[in-house]
């Protein structure tokens, strides 16, 4: 780890409220009228110049959503959301669609640079291609041409709808059907942008692909849609990062992410979620209601989710794997940190259908302040999943005595030859550990950072290098002031 000391210094210099990504970009924006209706759905579709089939698809989702009830089973509580009191489309209002980075509004690029995102292609050392999504639209994607040489498509989903409609039409909603759940259904009606990735047969993607989501505009919901398709024998590592300005209103982020892995394909999906969590009194922050699911359709395919969730006022998120192909593998590595009044209900679903399918779940929940942190997981093994195996480990770390950690593991095993193992622990940062570190010169906060990073090590080591460093810093920052 880069010295924790270094990190805290940088951070303390950069912010007072503890959230250094909380600035707002001042740029001319175009909004849809406030509220949600069939007309708004049409407005979004028209803005994006979408083909009729997609408009029909959205309208169908909207009609279905109207009949659905908001779920209440998660261990989170929040005032009733007024879906009419938000903007469903907000985009920087430059008339021309930028064809290259040079044409992107410099103010936008500055925003991403300020957030530490490598936006210039010259920064080759980073080896990361980035799609930048600002409120409702993708503003730029780097390294597109370089990737195209390998036959890889990496662009915004809006662009994919125009350029590769057959692929989008084939896969959109094929992993997360419209009516899957309330938030996914809403997303299907009003999604605005997100990333699209297609890795052709046998291609190993030569660089990390990443999307950086930024909510900027006030009273705006972000409904992103991401679709990643890995053809037989291909490999891709994809990273996702998110931030938003500090505001005392709650803003909604309801994303849908669909992954498809064919025979022998492997998708590694990493998230560092750092949406604004609200202030220490619990005012403001993002409601993060996300549906992420991957389908291991091919034999020996593999989907690995790694997430570090430090932000959002509320996190409702269960990245899942449908292990359909024989010998396919699903992994879920998660760190969820909640401090102050944050609430997180997160976990995974591993659905074993194919023979000899294997899944691993490692969940590390950290609660401080008055926060509540719930791991909710389902391991479902169908009768045909002969020889299936699952290993689940859920560890909770409590800091202080006003927070809570909960573990809710469901197991549905319908196969006699399957093996399911579950381990869970709950611990506190011990006084002797803190004192030991402090007697070696570390401050209280550096000590907490070090111990927490140690607790999360098994998960952090799954992250790509650049993200691991970022994640370690985030953990330390998120827990600032949580002890003593």
């Amino acid at each position, binding site marked *: *780890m880069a*010295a*924790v*000391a*270094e990190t805290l210094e940088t951070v303390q210099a950069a912010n007072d409220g503890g959230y250094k990504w909380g600035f707002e970009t001042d740029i001319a924006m175009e909004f849809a009228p406030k509220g949600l209706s069939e007309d708004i759905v049409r407005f979004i579709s028209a803005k994006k110049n979408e083909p009729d089939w997609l408009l029909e698809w959205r309208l169908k989702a909207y009609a279905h959503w109207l009949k659905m009830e908001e779920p209440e089973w998660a261990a989170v509580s929040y005032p009733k959301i007024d879906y009419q009191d938000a903007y469903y489309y907000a985009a920087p209002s430059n008339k021309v669609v930028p064809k290259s980075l040079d044409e992107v509004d410099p103010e936008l690029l500055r925003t991403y640079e300020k957030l530490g995102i490598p936006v210039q292609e010259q920064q080759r050392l980073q080896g990361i291609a980035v799609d930048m999504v600002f409120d409702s639209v993708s503003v730029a994607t780097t390294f597109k041409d370089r990737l195209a040489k390998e036959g890889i498509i990496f662009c915004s989903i809006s662009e994919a709808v125009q350029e590769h409609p057959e692929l989008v039409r084939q896969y959109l909603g094929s992993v997360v059907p419209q009516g899957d759940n309330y938030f996914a259904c809403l997303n299907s009606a009003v999604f605005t942008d997100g990333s699209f990735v297609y890795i052709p047969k046998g291609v190993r993607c030569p660089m990390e692909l990443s999307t950086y989501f930024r909510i900027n505009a006030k009273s705006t919901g972000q409904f992103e849609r991401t679709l990643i398709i890995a053809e037989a024998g291909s490999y891709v590592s994809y990273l996702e990062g998110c931030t938003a300005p500090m505001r005392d209103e709650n803003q909604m982020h309801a994303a849908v992410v669909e992954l498809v892995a064919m025979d022998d394909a492997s998708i590694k999906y990493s998230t560092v979620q750092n949406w604004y969590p609200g202030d220490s009194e619990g005012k403001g922050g993002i409601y993060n209601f996300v549906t992420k699911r991957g389908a291991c359709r091919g034999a020996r395919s593999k989907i690995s989710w790694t997430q570090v969730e430090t932000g959002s006022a509320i996190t409702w998120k269960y990245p899942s794997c449908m292990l359909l192909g024989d010998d396919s593998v699903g992994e879920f590595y998660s760190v969820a940190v909640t401090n102050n009044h944050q609430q997180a209900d997160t976990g995974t679903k591993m659905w074993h259908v194919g023979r000899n399918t294997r899944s691993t779940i490692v969940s590390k929940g950290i609660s401080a302040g008055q926060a509540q942190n719930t791991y909710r997981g389902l391991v479902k093994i169908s009768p045909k999943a002969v020889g299936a195996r699952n290993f689940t480990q859920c560890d909770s770390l409590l800091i202080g005595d006003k927070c809570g950690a909960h573990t809710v593991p469901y197991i549905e095993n319908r196969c006699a030859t399957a093996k399911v193992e579950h381990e869970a622990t709950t611990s506190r940062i*011990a*006084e*002797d*550990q803190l*004192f*030991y*570190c*402090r*007697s*070696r*010169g*570390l*401050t*209280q906060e*550096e000590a907490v950072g*070090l*111990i927490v*990073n*140690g*607790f*999360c*090590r*098994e998960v952090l080591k799954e992250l790509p290098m650049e993200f691991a460093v970022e994640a370690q810093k985030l953990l330390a920052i998120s827990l600032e002031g949580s002890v003593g």
Partner: protein
Amino acid sequence: MLKIEGLTAEIDGKPILKGIDLEIPTGEIHAIMGPNGSGKSTLSYVLSGREGYEITGGSATYNGLDLLAMEPEERAGSGVFLAFQYPVELPGVGNANFLRTAVNAVRKHKGEPEIDAMQFLKLARTKIKALQMSDDMLKRNVNVGFSGGEKKRNEVLQMALLEPTLAILDETDSGLDIDALKIVADGVNAMRGANFSSLVITHYQRLLDYIVPDRVHVLMGGRIVKSGGPELALALEAEGYAKVAA
């Protein structure tokens, strides 16, 4: 110079230190011996700033600094080091990372520049070699799965890296084999000098054959009941606390 005057401290309302007076002039090594439960570790914790001890009276200054008013990390930054009687495990935290973070934290307190990972490795390898330890020590998690003796050696390695000017060694010799005992003593003796003081807590006279103390104190029931030269340790070994302290 460490100067302790009339120091009293309680845990949960129970008096443990009942008026400690002790002076360790710079450059000297003093030993404290005393029966189990007499307050030796308590004294070492109070000097290094552990929470949970209520200081009810007296003072402790180190080179004029009011130790008792400082945070533990400030004391460490000012050159105070405690080798724990029971070193603490930090699961998931790599020893190399921990040691480097500690070295840099102390350097920062002293206003010295931080050292990078390469410089640290070089430094750590030199110290490890001098202490005849194995490089493996760096790869493992802090004290996790270490044998009793390995934990003690890790404490001595930390001392060697942090280069304190006041080292409190709380039973660092307990659990060490004879070879390790000599190595640890060599480690302490190597630091001996005009700017180094140490408080060595031990139950065994044998350690004091290797680290010859300037003074030996007997701590019983929260007070120093007797002080003398190295020969006091021999007398204790021969006759026991009750008789010597009487």
